């Protein structure tokens, strides 16, 4: 029953699996996103409070979700790599990091763009944006640490430990930032006014969420192949695999 799981620890298997999955994931992602975009931009009615500006949620919310999901995946893969010394775990973590970081940047900028018409300012220290900013710093820390080591194995393990430590800290950070924000709730209520999502607005959002997730999976597969190759350069199977 567990054979499929054990096989995932095998670099050549993962290399081939990723190649097979990527185009399908990408295709499905594009379909989901097309539906989400068309339905969300054209057919969903404007929000009665925010007008057409709420449509930025169709990018901001999925991006935020993927950014957190990617970090979780990175932490779990890192843990697997650390505890069971499975190199594929480290490869997945290394692949997930830059993708997750890019989605975090997307979340921050779209949040900023959304904030401008809503609050009149391009940046506000609202709890979610602040947490996302700290998440970006955590990503940078992991990526920088991995790159700082000359020995890639040691770099993998150090970055993995940092990813796990950061992951444990994420709920604490999230809680403390929310608490901090609630204390200083001054004249302006700086919460992202979540438009009350009528179903006609919600479906495109779910579609974009699905689309972004599938897209993340696809790009992860693509990046993972490079990461696996980099770690398995000496192995025999690699010679045959790259000629394909």
């Amino acid at each position, binding site marked *: 029953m567990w054979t499929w799981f054990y096989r995932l620890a095998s670099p050549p298997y993962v290399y081939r699996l990723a190649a097979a999955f990527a185009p399908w994931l*990408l295709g499905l992602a594009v379909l989901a996103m097309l539906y989400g*975009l068309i339905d969300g*931009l*054209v057919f969903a009615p*404007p929000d009665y409070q925010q*007008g*057409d*500006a709420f*449509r*930025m949620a169709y*990018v*901001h919310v999925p*991006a935020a979700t993927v950014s957190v999901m990617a970090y979780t995946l990175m932490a779990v893969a890192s843990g697997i790599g650390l505890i069971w010394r499975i190199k594929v775990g480290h490869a997945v973590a290394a*692949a997930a990091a*830059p*993708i997750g970081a*890019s*989605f975090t*940047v*997307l979340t921050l*900028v*779209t949040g900023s*763009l*959304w904030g*401008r*018409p809503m609050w009149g300012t391009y940046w506000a220290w609202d709890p979610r944006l602040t947490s996302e900013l700290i998440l970006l710093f955590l990503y940078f820390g992991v990526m920088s640490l991995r790159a700082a080591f000359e020995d890639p194995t040691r770099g993998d393990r150090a970055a993995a430990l940092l990813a796990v430590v950061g992951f444990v800290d994420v709920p604490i950070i999230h809680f403390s930032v929310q608490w901090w924000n609630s204390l200083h709730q001054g004249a302006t209520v700086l919460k992202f006014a979540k438009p009350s999502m009528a179903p006609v607005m919600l479906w495109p959002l779910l579609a974009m969420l699905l689309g972004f997730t599938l*897209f993340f999976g696809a*790009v992860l597969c*693509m*990046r993972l*192949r*490079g*990461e696996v*190759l*980099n770690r398995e*350069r000496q192995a025999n199977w*690699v*010679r045959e695999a*790259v000629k394909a």
Partner: protein
Amino acid sequence: MRAAAFFAMGGYARYVWPCFGLAASILLWNVWSARRHHAQARMRVLRAVAMAGSEQS
């Protein structure tokens, strides 16, 4: 008429469209970067194989 209203996005056009534009850019960057990363890794392996092959001959 409809198209103009669509592009105006209720007056928020200069926030909404850059938003989606940036999203598209980041998605495309991800695909491009992942493919480039893989290609570079492949090149490294092929070069190593070629060098090992020429050493043996």
